[in-house]
């Protein structure tokens, strides 16, 4: 790795100042599980790493039953997956956070890093999209919020401007859109050839909200590894609204998702395989989301 300077600020303001100064050539550094690997491969050579793990706003988890869940950008996946409120209210997020690498990677990897790395295959991103997450950014011009669905613009590219830092991710209370607190569920599934330690060949996240009569009042479907960025397939979710949550309805939504996918062939999988998997994983994720919405355990 090329040499760099290292700073570990303890406030957002300090961090933003370091990142904003073009003379520093600085990048934020949390878990480093993508960043350090990419630097060693020579993909980029920042002149400064700004370690964000000592900034309080990026390193806490807060759950309020009336406001929702806020996860600091530098919270590790392992910490998130051990948090009782996240298990109880956002198991769809656990689905994704618990499969980003093995036990050691999870103690360093972060949701924030997964999002900012903006890989097409980032497992946390479709889960965050279907849970309607919002990213809070801080920069030289102040703070702003960006829906996670709009955060990634191209492989490795995000909406972060010069000097901007991801502070936290916010998840609404479960079923906040419909006002029904207990009848929604989310599920994220991916396909890998081994049992663990692989990048997704394809992944699908699904979220459903059910009305009193059991029909779907709202739905979101998002995909990983089948487009230049994680893909929110709005049409697939829209097609489920007002429908009964049957296998046929799910199959139809899955077909829409397949049509929206733009997979490539690479060392991890073929385009045809990926497009096929989108259908399979979308159906299975919808089924899991439905089980959770009904308060049942997911089968796999």
């Amino acid at each position, binding site marked *: *790795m090329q*040499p760099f300077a290292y700073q570990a600020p303890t406030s957002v303001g300090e961090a933003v100042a370091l990142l904003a100064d073009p003379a520093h050539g600085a990048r934020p550094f949390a878990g480093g599980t993508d960043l350090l690997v990419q630097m060693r491969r020579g993909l980029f050579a920042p002149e400064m790493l700004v370690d964000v793990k000592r900034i309080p706003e990026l390193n806490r988890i807060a759950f309020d039953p009336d406001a929702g869940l806020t996860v600091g950008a530098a919270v590790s996946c392992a910490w998130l997956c051990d948090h009782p409120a996240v298990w109880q209210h956002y198991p769809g997020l656990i689905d994704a956070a618990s499969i980003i690498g*093995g036990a050691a990677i999870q103690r360093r990897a972060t949701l924030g890093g997964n999002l900012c790395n903006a890989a097409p295959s980032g497992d946390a991103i479709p889960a965050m999209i279907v849970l309607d997450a919002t990213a809070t950014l801080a920069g030289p011009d102040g703070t702003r919020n960006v829906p996670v669905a709009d955060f990634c613009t191209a492989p490795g590219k995000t909406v972060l401007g010069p000097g901007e830092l991801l502070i936290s991710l916010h998840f609404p209370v479960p079923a906040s859109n419909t006002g029904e607190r207990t009848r929604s569920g989310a599920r994220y599934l991916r*396909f890998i*050839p*081994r*049992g*663990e*330690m*692989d*990048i997704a*060949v394809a992944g699908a996240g699904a979220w459903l909200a059910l009305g009193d009569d059991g029909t779907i009042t709202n739905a979101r479907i998002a995909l990983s590894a089948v487009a230049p960025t994680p893909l929110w397939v709005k049409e697939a979710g829209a097609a489920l609204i007002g429908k009964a949550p049957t296998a046929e309805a799910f199959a139809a939504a899955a077909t829409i998702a397949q049509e929206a996918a733009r997979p490539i062939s*690479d*060392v*991890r*999988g*073929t*385009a*045809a*395989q990926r*497009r*096929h*998997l989108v259908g*399979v994983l979308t159906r299975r994720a919808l089924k899991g989301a439905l089980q959770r919405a009904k308060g049942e355990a997911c089968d796999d």
Partner: protein
Amino acid sequence: MSTQKNAQFNVVGERLPRYDGADKVTGKAIFGPDVALPGMLHGFVLRSPHAHARLRSINTSRAEALQGVYAVVTAADLPPAGSTDHRYARDNTFASDKVLYVGHAVAAVAARTQALAEEAARLIEVEYEVLPAVTDVLAAMQDDAPILHEDMRTHSLAGRGEKPSNVASHFQQLKGDPAHGFAEADVIVERECHTATVHQGYIESHAAVATWSDDGVLTVYTTTQGSFAVRDHIVWLLDLPMSQVRVVPTEVGGAFGGKNTSYVDVAAALLARKARRPVKITMPRPDVFLATGPSSGAIFRVKMGAKRDGHITAVQAELFYEAGAYPGSPVGSGATVMFGPYAIPNGQVDGYDVVTNGPRVSSYRAPGGTPGNFAVETLVDELAEKLGMDPIEFRLLNHAHEGDERVDGGTHGSIGGIEVLKAAQACEHYRAPLTGPNQGHGVAHAFWGNWGGRSSCTLSVNGDGSMNLVTSSVDLSGTRTTIAMQAAEALELPPERIRPSVGDTDNTGYADVSAGSRTTYATGIAAIQAAEDVIAQMRARAAALWDVPVENVAYANGVFSAASDLRFTFAELAEQVTGSGGSVSSMANIDAAEWGAGFSTQIADVEVDPETGKVTLLRYTVVQDVGQAVNPTMVEGQMQGGATQGIGWALYEGYAYNEKGQMLNANFLDYKIPTALDVPMIETVIVEVPYPKHPFGVRGVGEPPILPPPAAIANAIYRATGVRPDRLPMTPAHLLEKMGVIGDW
């Protein structure tokens, strides 16, 4: 899982803990990358980014000028080559006129720190004229293929070819009358199989530390399967007297054949000589994939015929093996393995050794055997099914016996293949019902010749009756223990009395590489001989001390005796030894010219997700004939480890290239070896058909278990899905395509 303890042995057959265990569980064991010497510099090898190119020029001046750089070396620093093989070895150390694969070394730098060495390497200016590359074996054989070596001509039964070719050699094996045999057959099956290049995947990279004395003695600490092989290689390439080169093998973090060859030792030696300081080179992981010696990717076209009564009448096969940049793929041993277990009256095998733009292949646990076994054992399964026979019954009916001649022209010696098949048939797994839908049960069988070779052991008696045993053979996975156990058995003493160690080229006799499943077998024989000679010497000392003829001195169970009242325990006599004529020690140097072959049958239960093609291994059993298990716990470990490598070969592993011949997955993320989640507990059944020419009946153990897994799993996948995979790895995409699940969009 255990063997019947053989009552004739006291030590052999015991589940003893390893002698090297304490150091391995405390992190104290010194592996290649752990060696550090005072004043040591760090070396870095600059490698070609192109798969095929002319090397027009190298300018190292800017690198040499960098502060903190002590030496830069290229091919210009190597003595000239003599024979063709010598030229290939020299070129593979540092390229001279061409680079032939991505990762081909072109220069090396020694500097004060690793980072400086890498920075200096970036300052070396290399001018390449890029040429088209070829990585596929069939493409390399076409008339219009890019030619790697202008002077290469095909060697075949017809003599030496006339035109430049990438086909280094073509051999043919012919037995009987295959055309007639196929005409007689009632059922004929055939298939073309494509198998990818795989890597041994050892977790420890290659590493060497070289240091010179000022009077020209070179010492190299290196992780290797053969200290003498490394010495031979250095002496050959640097034109040095053998006695002036000392190779000290470190502990080895996995090898499996991939550390039979020397990759960074010569470069480290050259740098250390020029820098006048010790130099360490550790290969980064991507370089290990790119620039060491993986196994051959290969293509097979195989046809087999049998009569309705189940007897095989004829076989035919074409084997196309990728050698990488220089010739010498294991296509010959692939041919031997494929049809090896069976008595086949008529057969023809054509094997092609073809150079391609990739690293020169090296041995990987039963070299050349696994993909050929996949091609044949899936056809055997198909034949048995078409004939309505149980897969094991079909194999039993056709199995070779001692004295049978194989299609490759070799003759079977004492073998235990039938016993292995019967044990597999009798084991609970073979009869256990499957537990759900989309599941299948498959079996495959394999033969491997093993090896004997040259080994040396020195056994020395200490004054307290304890002994030191120095072996010539590098210990990859426990052989210092199995060798010491055999010495203890021969000495009729408890194994705690012996402490084994691995010597270096200065203090042991010559040994072949620890490979070919030969070490416990052949170095064991050397240890036994040394033990017997020690007993003979001790008897002579007792005779002198007692003033009796040596023929009257008996030795049994650790006690020397003569007449009714003359008695020394081994320790009592040892105490007197130094004062009675000097120390007692014995060096045995052997060349084992015969050895026993091994067989393994394996049973796999799989579940295949019909929507995704994902294969889950539900249950796995390895049955293997080991002659006599010296240490059954360690034998089980070899069976489980070899099978797991075969499982990776079957389902996950394979080199992927782009159209420029660049490897796309030179890392442990996308070159996928099995994790703990990918395999179940692996049941083992040890069969013992003693090999008569080893004093304790030992046969080699390490290699046979890697052969059957791909076929066993493929045969199970067939029963779960109705399709037969014909490609390794059997990826989910391959299965979806075979099942017709992936359509066109």
